[in-house]
């Protein structure tokens, strides 16, 4: 008779069986996750590219597209300010991504290369910044930006978005720079390069996977943002796509078809990034990892 007990897997089941079990588990997990991740995206696309009357025909949702229609997109592009909102989103996302990355590279470099009092404190403060519920910060930030005369400016929204992403990007670059050997810089110094020049010639190129990851993260934060844009922007022509969409989508004449079409448009930049830059992302987390 078979005996099952402690260590049975190790002792009695052959390596081949174990490998087979493992293989099956691997494939099953992969499939499950793939399905879990894909289905909502597919549903979004399916609803977006059908006219509402064919998507909902007969009282059930048609997921199998048999007649393509760009009616939903036409409504978005002609009857709403979607293009303008998109433009705004791209402007602030790009500038916040840039700013957040620059700040992270600077702070990450400083944290790993200089020793000064208050360094640990500062590093911790970065983490503690995330502990304050951001909802109530809307009012103080509004007051501050108002006082500075910065409401309805790309600049203020860029600052606000960077505030959300910077703690994490700083942390990421801090990690990353710890894996960049200081000997690379020293070797440049010995060969006559100033510290500043060394940063351009050596540090930045070597840290590229790190800051690309940081940039992708801050992109995600900025593109995702709703709250900060709501705080800073109060004019229709300055709204970002998420705020703008939330406004026009609650109109009486807008339904799920347009909603999904808007979602699809919003999803295009993230999709491109996922497709083209994910290798960098992995490298960034990899070397930058949590060593």
């Amino acid at each position: 008779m078979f005996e099952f007990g402690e260590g049975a897997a190790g002792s009695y089941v052959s390596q081949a069986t174990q490998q087979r079990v493992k293989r099956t588990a691997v494939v099953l997990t992969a499939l499950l996750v793939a399905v879990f991740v894909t289905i909502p995206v597919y549903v979004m696309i399916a609803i977006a590219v059908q006219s509402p009357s064919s998507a909902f025909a007969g009282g059930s949702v048609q997921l199998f597209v048999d007649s393509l229609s760009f009616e939903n997109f036409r409504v978005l592009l002609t009857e709403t300010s979607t293009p303008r909102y998109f433009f705004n989103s791209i402007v602030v996302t790009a500038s916040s991504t840039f700013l957040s990355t620059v700040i992270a590279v600077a702070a990450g470099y400083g944290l790993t290369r200089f020793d000064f009092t208050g360094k640990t404190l500062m590093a911790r403060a970065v983490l503690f910044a995330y502990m304050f519920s951001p909802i109530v910060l809307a009012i103080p930030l509004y007051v501050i930006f108002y006082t500075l005369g910065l409401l309805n400016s790309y600049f203020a929204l860029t600052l606000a978005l960077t505030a959300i992403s910077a703690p994490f990007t700083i942390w990421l670059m801090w990690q990353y720079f710890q894996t960049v050997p200081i000997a690379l810089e020293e070797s440049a110094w010995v060969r006559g390069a100033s510290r500043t020049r060394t940063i351009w010639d050596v540090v930045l190129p070597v840290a590229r996977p790190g800051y690309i990851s940081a940039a992708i993260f801050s992109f995600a934060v900025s593109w995702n943002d709703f709250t900060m844009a709501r705080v800073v922007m109060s004019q229709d022509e300055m709204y970002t796509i998420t705020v703008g969409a939330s406004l026009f989508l609650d109109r009486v004449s807008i339904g799920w078809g347009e909603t999904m079409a808007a979602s699809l448009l919003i999803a295009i930049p993230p999709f491109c990034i996922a497709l083209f830059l994910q290798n960098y992302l992995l490298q960034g987390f990899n070397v930058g990892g949590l060593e």
Partner: protein
Amino acid sequence: MSAVTSVRHRVADMDERRFLLLATFVPVAGFFAVVWLAPILYALGMSLFDNPTGAASFVGVANYADILTSVGFPKYLWNSVVYAVSSTVLSLLVGLGLALVVNQQVRGGNALRTLMIFPYLLPTLVVIFMWKFILDPNLGVLNQYLVQWGVLESPIAFFSTLQWAMPAVVVASVWKFGSFAFFILLARLQAIDPNLYERARVEGASTWQSFRDITLPHLRGAILIILLVRGIWMFNKFDIIFLSTRGGPLEATTTLPIRVYQLAFSEVNFGGATALAGIMFFLLALVAVVYFRAFEPEKEVAN
């Protein structure tokens, strides 16, 4: 040898060093002062006033006392903990599972990787549109198929049923945030020396044993950090819950951030809202300090 230079400095180099030091920290510090420190202090200041945005009157810690003794507080706190813990742990498990899979170099692993990062980059608004649509009792495809296949007799309104609302919100959260853990863990997995596994196999360890004794210990640091950072983020998560259930039904998904919002904007009690935010901040800080003491995740971070 230490990378950090010593107490005495050369004059010429000193200037450039000081310049770089200032260049790397002053903007960052100033920036943080404006966009984090000032608003936080401002909010904490407001928490000491009644009607701080109107005819403010100083009430000391009365707002704090009111919040802590209010009937709903324990329930909202519990909801927050349930939401933060379950969504963090589940995204960790999903991320870990998938990272292990992709690390096995299965065919299509790269496609999976692309798939995984995509939800993370999508705005919450869009994520919620998707999930509301899928789980909707009327339009939702999930209900449609479950009823069609005879699994359910009648559709379930996932976001508005007492027992389903929280799980539904958690599922949507895990969908969006699973890849955060995935990428960090995958990176760590790929950094493990394959020789260790070879050695374990030679020494007769089973697949499970080598996972337990080699893989897990190597991931420990990453897991600790994910739990901490993600946990804090999820505890303070507002939009995903608000957009999907607004805290309902019957406060089943009313977490502390949702409560902050209700206090601030539907009950127009900004003093109370900021006091609650203050309480949450102190709770998180406390947990973080204990966590730092107990697990020392910083060791994994800073040398």
